[in-house]
């Protein structure tokens, strides 16, 4: 077993990470039941222990995957230490996302914004951002991020994959997931 496998096994034993599970039916409920989303059948999904993140992948999380998360808007972004506010326009939220990604390393710092426009997700006004960057091997990676604020939470749905083969193949699945995304009825 490699080091990553060993670490995952130990964490699973300790109950720190939820075990990955195959998506068998639709919709998938958020770990904290705050939303539902149609993840593609046959993909592998995994929730975070704090119930704030749900990830799903077809071929492996390090290759390509969806990432759906929510967090309090007052919580600052990890790298830029900037926080969203309820008054922010969708374009300003997208600006925070770009800044966070650009602050990751020298490679993402050189990213190109392919598309940045308003979007509606589960009836909320948000943004639809598409960026492209190269990794250290020169492989082009594309990331799509949808984001919006609902009450005191910032929601983001993202998909990332190499441009070579994977992005075009699985992007339609992500689009379907975004279209199916619904905040829980009580929160509407």
């Amino acid at each position, binding site marked *: 077993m490699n080091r990553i496998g060993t670490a995952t096994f130990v964490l699973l034993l300790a109950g720190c990470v939820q075990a990955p599970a195959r998506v068998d039916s639709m919709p998938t409920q958020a770990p904290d039941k705050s939303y539902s989303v149609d993840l593609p059948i046959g993909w592998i999904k995994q929730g975070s222990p704090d119930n704030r993140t749900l990830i799903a992948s077809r071929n492996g999380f390090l290759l390509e995957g969806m990432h759906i998360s929510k967090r309090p808007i007052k919580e600052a972004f990890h790298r830029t230490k900037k926080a969203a506010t309820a008054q922010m*326009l969708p*374009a300003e939220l997208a600006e925070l996302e770009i800044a966070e990604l650009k*602050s990751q*390393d*020298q490679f993402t710092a050189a990213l190109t914004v392919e598309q*940045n426009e308003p979007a509606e997700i589960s009836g909320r006004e948000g943004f639809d951002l598409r960026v492209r960057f*190269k990794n*250290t091997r*020169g492989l082009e990676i594309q990331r799509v991020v949808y984001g919006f604020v609902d009450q005191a939470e910032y929601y983001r749905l993202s998909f990332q994959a190499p441009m070579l083969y994977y992005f075009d193949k699985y992007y339609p699945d992500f689009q379907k997931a975004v279209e199916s995304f619904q905040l829980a009825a009580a929160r509407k």
Partner: protein
Amino acid sequence: MAQALARGGVIYDSEASTAYVQHVMERLFPEFKGHIYVAIVKSSQLNAFALPNGRIYVNQGLLVRFRNEAQLATVLAHEGIHFTNRHGYQEVQSGKDYAAFGAIGGMIVPILPQLMAVSSTYGFSRQMETEADVQGFARLKRAGYDVHESPKVFEHLIAEIKAEDIKEPFFFASHPRLLERVENMKRLSSGAAPGGDGASTTAYAQTMAQVQVDNLESMLSAGRAKSALIMLADPERLVELPPQAQYYLGEAYRLRGAEGDVKRAEEAYLKAIEGTPEFAPSYRALGVLCMKANHYLDAQKYLERYVELAPSAPDLKYVESYLKIARKKSGGTP
């Protein structure tokens, strides 16, 4: 590492700027022409580093902090000595610098960003850094540069590091303490005759105009408003920058978001419009500012002007949605 940097798309693609920096390097190291190459890295961080193969990398962010060519030459001379004195190989032999080892041995590529950070952070031994200072200074003098500019490089950076509260700037992390370096460079230059080449700030600012603009955009889009303000809020530097710099000053205030920054941003945007009336982004910025302050008529006016000037702007869909709101709220046709 050099290949990964090129493949990763992080090299700043400006033939003119690169040729200029390369020219300065060749003036300092004429006998190494064809063996020493400088590239500009698309990064607003204060950093420069040398690889053992003769590739010298200078970040955009550091380039635009210099006030003149003599200051640029100070750092290039220092980094050039690391190459000519084979400091990278020596570090590998001593087994101290894992990053240098990675650079030479072609270690695992996926951890390259971390390696680059390690390389810049740990740098070379203190003895090698001092050697690069002393011998670099001699190169500077021999090439005819105004050596009295060299301590100023570090004085400016000290001010910036204090203002931005940077704990460990990469370039200087393992170099002798910054203050010690200033003292060192002052000591070296104290006996030198006054004068020399490369002290003109205007000529340097003109040469670096595009790099300045690109770096400001890069800094602001990475959310580094405080760093941008250090340059832009300095009236002496602001006059050296292209006229649209007032727009970037406004953006830096808006992004910083401290008390009074909205007013400061508004003033800067208005000055930008006054100085460069055809520069579209200032109108969009003012329009959004007015909309957020519920001044819908003004918002409409500025946003319409933006659409007029930039009919194919990438953020047009956002602006159209703002215009719809502004028109509705101001009683016009949505």
